[in-house]
């Protein structure tokens, strides 16, 4: 009960402060539409249902001209009076209402925050609205696609992950930040990297070097690689989160900087490259704001074992799952007719091992910054 009145208070206070942006008003309108749908169906004695664009593999396709993954027109029906859907229906409406509260309050929260905001015991039962955060996350994505509102438009963010350093000055939430003076940690890339939050001021960079992991990124930062080569250095802590992808996208499109990726030579590395370049299945509806079809793959390459003369002790054997994943990736439409990629994956399978970027340290602590990457840049030896 207490929870309910508290929630009501939030909504009442906001109605009065009219400081809503145009974007916010648009999002509120679509949330209102969701509620209206339920209302109308109920009063007509109909079975209320929601139409949610399908986020499954079968509903994404590769757009050859745009060169990224797009979501199809497939929709799933979610019914209130369907035993297997009743609960997720209720959760969807709850998430809609939660976002409305955030927008009205002019606040943002993490997806974990929203989960806690909405989690309570259903009246008269011992059942929770959401048992775990992982019950809530996919519902948030459902709401995003259903209302075609971006996550930040719903006033939600994911936790920061990823760092940036380089000859660029930007403004983040009104604070001017010189990314060439960020010490050893770098600028922490925010999860919302929209122009409302982050504006680029000036830069002298010629390209962006995106590396997979924090550990590799530190090597490059310590060696001041970005100073020597005039580049922006980023990492995404493995699979780059939305904020990192969005920032890379903007650096590429707004500042016209080429993006080169230095990732591990394994299926996971290939997949990260695929996501940066073509977008992900899960976030296919965001591809146009995130995918960078012109990104290039710099390494590690399957041939590096020979080319760099690496010791067999730094290789990691492929397991069954790796082989399976590699074959899957080779079959992606955007890799399927790229001979170089097919050869690359084939060679890895032939090798029977994977190579991490860190393995290069075996040749010398700064081998990667002083020899490996400069050589690729000189030769323009990239995979598309």
């Amino acid at each position: 009960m207490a929870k309910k009145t508290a929630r009501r208070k939030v909504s009442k206070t906001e109605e009065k402060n009219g400081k809503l942006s145009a974007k916010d008003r648009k999002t509120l309108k679509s949330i209102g539409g969701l509620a209206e749908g339920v209302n109308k169906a109920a009063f007509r004695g109909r079975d209320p249902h929601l139409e949610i664009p399908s986020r499954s593999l079968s509903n994404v396709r590769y757009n050859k001209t745009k060169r990224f993954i797009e979501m199809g027109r497939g929709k799933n029906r979610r019914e209130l009076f369907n035993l297997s859907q009743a609960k997720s229906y209720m959760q969807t409406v709850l998430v809609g209402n939660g976002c409305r509260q955030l927008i009205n309050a002019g606040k943002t929260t993490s997806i974990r925050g929203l989960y806690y905001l909405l989690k309570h015991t259903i009246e008269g039962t011992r059942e929770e609205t959401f048992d775990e955060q992982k019950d809530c996350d996919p519902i948030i994505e459902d709401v995003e696609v259903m209302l075609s509102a971006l996550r930040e438009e719903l006033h939600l963010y994911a936790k920061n992950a990823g760092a940036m350093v380089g000859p660029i000055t930007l403004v983040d939430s009104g604070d001017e930040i010189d990314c060439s003076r960020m010490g050893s940690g770098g600028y922490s890339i925010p999860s919302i990297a929209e122009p409302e939050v982050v504006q680029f001021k000036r830069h002298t960079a010629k390209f962006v070097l995106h590396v997979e992991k924090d550990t590799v990124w530190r090597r490059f930062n310590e060696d001041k690689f970005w100073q020597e080569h005039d580049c922006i250095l980023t990492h995404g802590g493995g699979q780059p989160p939305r904020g990192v992808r969005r920032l890379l996208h903007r650096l590429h499109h707004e500042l016209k900087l080429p993006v080169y990726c230095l990732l591990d030579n394994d299926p996971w590395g290939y997949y990260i490259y695929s996501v940066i370049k073509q977008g992900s299945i899960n976030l296919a509806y965001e591809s146009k704001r995130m995918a960078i079809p012109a990104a290039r793959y710099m390494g590690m390459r399957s041939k590096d074992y020979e080319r760099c003369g690496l010791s067999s002790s730094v290789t990691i054997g492929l397991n069954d799952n790796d082989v399976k994943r590699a074959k899957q990736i080779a079959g992606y439409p955007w890799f399927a007719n790229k001979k170089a990629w097919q050869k690359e994956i084939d060679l890895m399978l032939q090798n029977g091992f994977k190579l991490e970027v860190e393995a290069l340290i075996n040749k010398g602590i700064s081998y990667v910054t002083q020899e490996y990457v400069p050589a690729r840049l000189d030769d323009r030896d990239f995979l598309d």
Partner: protein
Amino acid sequence: MDIDRNIEGKGVPGLSPQATNGKRSPATENGRTRVAKSGTRRRRTTAQSMAAQQRNISVSEFFAKNRHLLGFDNPRKALLTTVKEAVDNSLDACEEAGIVPEIWVRIECAKGNRYSVAIQDNGPGIVKRQVPLIFGKLLYGSKFHRLRMSRGQQGIGISAAGMYGKLTTGKPVKITTKISVRKPAHYYEVEIDTKHNVPEIHNGRGEGVDIPPGEKGRAYMQRHGIEWVSHYAAAEGQTPKELRSGTRVTIELEGKFLRGRGSVDEYLQQTAIANPHVTLHYVDPEGQERTYERSTTELPVEPKEIKPHPYGVELGHLVTMLKDSKAVTLSQFMTSAFSRVSAAVARRICEAANLSTRASTRKIGRDEADALYQAIQQTRISNPATDCISPIGEDLLLKGLHHVVPGEFYAAATRPPAVYRGNPFQIEVALAYGGGNSVEKLTYEVLIELLGHSDARTLRQFLVNTFDGIGSDSADRIIKSSGFGSRQSPARMGPADIKSLLDAMQNVTLSEKQSMQIMRYANRVPLQFQAAGCAITQGVINTNWRSYGLSQSRGGMPAGPVTVMVHMASVWVPFTSESKEAVAAYPEIEKELRLALQAVGRKLGMYLRRRKRVKQEGERRSIFLRYLGEVATAVTEINGGDRQGLYEQLLKVAKRKTAEADTNLDSRGRAIVESDEDYGRNVLVVEQRPEDLLVGLAKTDDEQKQLF
């Protein structure tokens, strides 16, 4: 000398209903067929010579030879048989006298393996001069002499129990009997003179003693240690009513008291079920007192004696009957010797046999008799009068079963009377489903309660005695898996112990199926032995219970919390052997059993299907209901609408949606409408609380009840 044959001869004067049916020829049947074939005149002389011989044989010798037939083959059974003989007599006596029976049974451990068994009734009492004969002379009874449905058919008589008592303990039978409030009661201590089969009276200088009515008598009894229940138990604040009459028999014998299958406990419980008009007080050797209250004061309809029916007569027997008959003409013979044969029927039979109705019975030879026999089989003769059978009736079956066996669903079916071999009989079946201290429903709190009430000495004993479907095997496994010692006392268990016991119970027994309990009865008397060889058990096994929603392996007993009672009532129950514990499988009996079992089975199936559906409905609705409130709240917070209005609207839609989905479709896709009348009559459904069927809903119950 063959006393046994003599008994049978007396039991079926001039009739051999069981003569070989081709399939089975048990010893009895052969025995009796021989008697029948030998002819009346010869048999009479046999009877006379036998009477002469009787003086010479020692009754104890006879007894020793035949104890297995008489139910005294082992100490355990001897105790049971003694109780049985006395209780059967009490019930018969009360019913014949039109008294609603109340019976007190008390078994006390005398010393060592000696038990003192006392049975008292509120029956008519026994006139003074009969007492010594009834209790002190073997084979002195009234029931073998008539073709009538009675309990007595099964026993050998109370005097046999007295005899056994005397042989094993040397103690006489003690009888107290009273035929009216004002008249004196009689007290006898009697034993059989085993050499001459005559009673020997020990007390009152061979005359017994008379006890005056009223206070004086009570004082006398107290002085002499004569036990007598003088008053009925009364509700608090009411004056107890005095017993007007009754009989108390006390026999001391060597025996063995056990519980479980084939026990006195089982016999009394089953007797209470099949005799819902009796109130039974039972004190067992451990001093535990149990009372089975009557559920009706209606006495069974008094069965009548009948003449044999033509269909039940074998050719050889027919020849004998013709020879015996005093009738002059064939027509006279037919109409007087048989039931259901009118002059017209007799004429039709004679015509079919190509014989004159006026033919002399004396002149009917073997060939004519054969023709007559064939003609009888071809002629339509109406079934024998069935008022000689007194079925329990569907109503009372339900009451009796419900009273004693806990459950949630009961069904009963009494088949119309049918005839095997010219003997009218009737099959009745009643079924109880569910209930009991089912382990599945057991909660921690209930278990604590049960443990508190139990006076079992070991945990094992507690488990076996308290729960249906836990036998000693599963009890051992439960105890083992919960890590207790085999001699763990149920009294000394802490909360943690009880929790682990509960866990073990639920884990162990769930994987194990409880099999159906069958209670068999012949003329209201429980049959406790030889289950496998009994037509009733076979009938249950041969019924396809799977189609009624129970699981059953091929050729096996169905599984589930089900108790089935089957009653065969007949003027002559065909037993497979002398020990009279299993009903023989005549095709007519098998058919009636099948039909009766199917009738209750169908009703059970209907109930189980409905229960499953109601449960599913409940679950569906509860799932919708629990989310509607959340949806209504969220939506109206978004659009500022009226929450209650939207909620009610959503409920309406929910109700309609579930109602649609609830409609069952038959195989052709048409909606099946099942209403409560479908069960037909004679079904008892014990209301299950709706909460039991709904998951996880505590508060919204009221809402549900209102709306659905």
